[in-house]
C-alpha cells in the first residue's frame, strides 16, 4: 500500500512547480487554516482576505521553504503574521470588530431554521462559542490551533514562540475555564 506523501514532501514538490502537490496541500490545510483565521480575526471581513493573501504569500515564499521545518507551522505563521499586521495597523478596528464577529456568529446560529431536536445542540454550540470567545487570547489561540486546526503541541509552540510546556499550560487553563463556564450555564438553565 502506498503511503501518502508528507506535507513536507508535497511542499518541496510545490516549490518545484508541482500543481498537484499544491492542490493536495490546500485540500489538507485550507479548512484548518480558515478556522484558525476565523477564530483569530477580530473582523469577519478580514477572514477571506487573510486566507487568500496567506496562500499567495506562501506561493511567494515557497522557494525559501526547507523541509527541516513543519509545513503547517510555516503556513500558519504566514497567516498569523498577516493578522497581527492588520491588527497592529488599527487597534480601534480590532476593538470594534470583536463585537461584529460575536454578533455574526450568534446571528448565523439564530438564522438557522432547525428542528426542535437540534435546539439543545444549537444552544450548546452558542454557549461554547461564547465561552471560547471569553478566553484570554493566548489560551483561545492554543485551543483553536489544537482542537479545531489539529496542530500538535510542538507545532503550536513553534508558531507562538513559546515552550511546549507553556502551551500545555494554556490548554489546561482553557479546558478548565470552558468546563467551568459550561457547568455554570447548565446550572443556570436548571
Amino acid at each position, binding site marked *: 500500500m502506498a503511503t501518502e506523501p508528507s506535507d513536507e514532501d508535497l511542499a518541496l514538490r510545490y516549490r518545484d*512547480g508541482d500543481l498537484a502537490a499544491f492542490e493536495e496541500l490546500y485540500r489538507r490545510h485550507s*479548512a484548518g487554516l480558515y478556522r484558525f483565521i476565523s477564530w483569530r480575526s477580530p473582523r469577519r471581513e478580514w477572514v*477571506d482576505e487573510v486566507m487568500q493573501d496567506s496562500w499567495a504569500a506562501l*506561493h*511567494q515564499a515557497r*522557494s525559501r521553504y526547507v523541509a527541516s521545518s513543519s509545513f503547517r507551522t510555516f503556513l500558519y505563521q504566514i497567516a498569523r503574521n498577516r493578522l497581527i499586521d492588520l491588527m*497592529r495597523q488599527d487597534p480601534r478596528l480590532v476593538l470594534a470588530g470583536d463585537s461584529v464577529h460575536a454578533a455574526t456568529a450568534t446571528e448565523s446560529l439564530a438564522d438557522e431554521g432547525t428542528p426542535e431536536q437540534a435546539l439543545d445542540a444549537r444552544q450548546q454550540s452558542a454557549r*461554547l462559542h461564547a465561552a471560547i470567545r471569553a478566553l484570554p487570547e493566548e489560551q483561545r489561540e492554543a485551543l483553536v490551533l489544537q482542537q479545531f486546526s489539529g496542530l500538535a503541541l510542538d507545532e503550536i509552540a513553534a508558531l507562538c514562540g513559546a515552550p511546549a510546556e507553556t502551551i500545555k499550560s494554556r490548554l489546561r487553563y482553557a479546558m478548565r475555564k470552558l468546563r467551568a463556564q459550561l457547568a455554570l450555564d447548565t446550572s443556570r438553565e436548571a
Partner: protein
Amino acid sequence: MTTRHDDHDHDYDDGDLDAFLRGEDALSAELRGIEQPAPPPALDARIRAEAEQALRASASAANDAEEKALVASPLGRWRAPLALAATVVIGVSLGLQWKGWHESTPAALSDGVPLGAGPAVVEEAAAIGKLPALREGGDGQAAAPAPAPVPAPVPAPALREPPVERVRPALAPPPPPALAPAPVFAAPAAPAPPAPPAPPAPAAPPWSPAPSTLLAPDASVDRYQRYASPDRRVAVAGRRVAPAADTAGAIDARRAQRWLVLLGELLDLHLDDDARTSWSRFREDYPQYPVPPELQRRLDALPAAAGKPSP
C-alpha cells in the same frame, strides 16, 4: 508550595488534559460538534485558480529564461560538442605536427631532448642551454652576445632549420656562456603554443552558464515578487489589465493598502530582497501614497541592494 493534594490534582489534571488533547473526553467531543467556519467554495476556487496561474506563469518564465539563455549564444546546445570536437582536432593536428617534427629531427637532437617531448621539455632544454647552441652553429662561440635569430613562440620549425652537422659538437660541451640566450626561449613560455590540455578550458563555460541562468535565484525571486503584488491581475499576467468595474480611486487605494500589508509581511519573513523590490514597485505605482510611519521606518532600515539605492 506544592501540597500532596496539589500533586494529586495535577496528576488528575494531566490525565484529563491528555484525554482532552487526544479528543477522548466529553468537552473535546462537544468542541468537535460546534459549527465551524469553512472557506466559501468561491474563495476556494479563487485561491486554486490563482495558484495554478502563478505556477504556470513561473513555468513560462522559466522557459523564457531558458530560451533566452539559448538565444544569447548562437551556438546554443552545440557549444559543448563543438568545443570537444575542436579540442580533438587541435590535439590530432598537434600530434601529427609533433610526429612530423620528430621524424625530421636528427638523432643528435634526440640526444638532448627526449623523443616525443612536448614544448615544455623543449623549453627546459633551452633553459639549460642546449637549444641556443644549435642556433649558434656549434662553433663554440656561444658566449658572444648573439641576438636570438628565431622567433620564440614557434620553436618547432626553428629546430628543424639548423644543419645536423653542427648540432653534435654544440651539444657535447654545454658551455656556460650558452646560458645567456636562454631567456629568449624561456621568455615566451606564457604564449607557448597551445598544449593539448589547454583546449578543454573553453569547453567548460558552456556547461556552467546554462544551469546557473536557469536556476538563478534572482530570476525566481522576481517572479515571486510579481506574484506578491496585491493586484493579481498584474502579477499573473505580467501586465496591468484594466478591471471591468474598477473606477480608479477606491480600488486603487485598496490595492495600495493591501500592497503595504504585503510589504509588512515580507519584512516579517525577513525577505529583504523581495521587500526592497516590492517597495520600489510600490513607489513606482504610488509615488505619493502615504505609508504608515512604522512601516516606513522598517523599509528605510532595509539594507540597500548592491548598486540599487532604495527609493
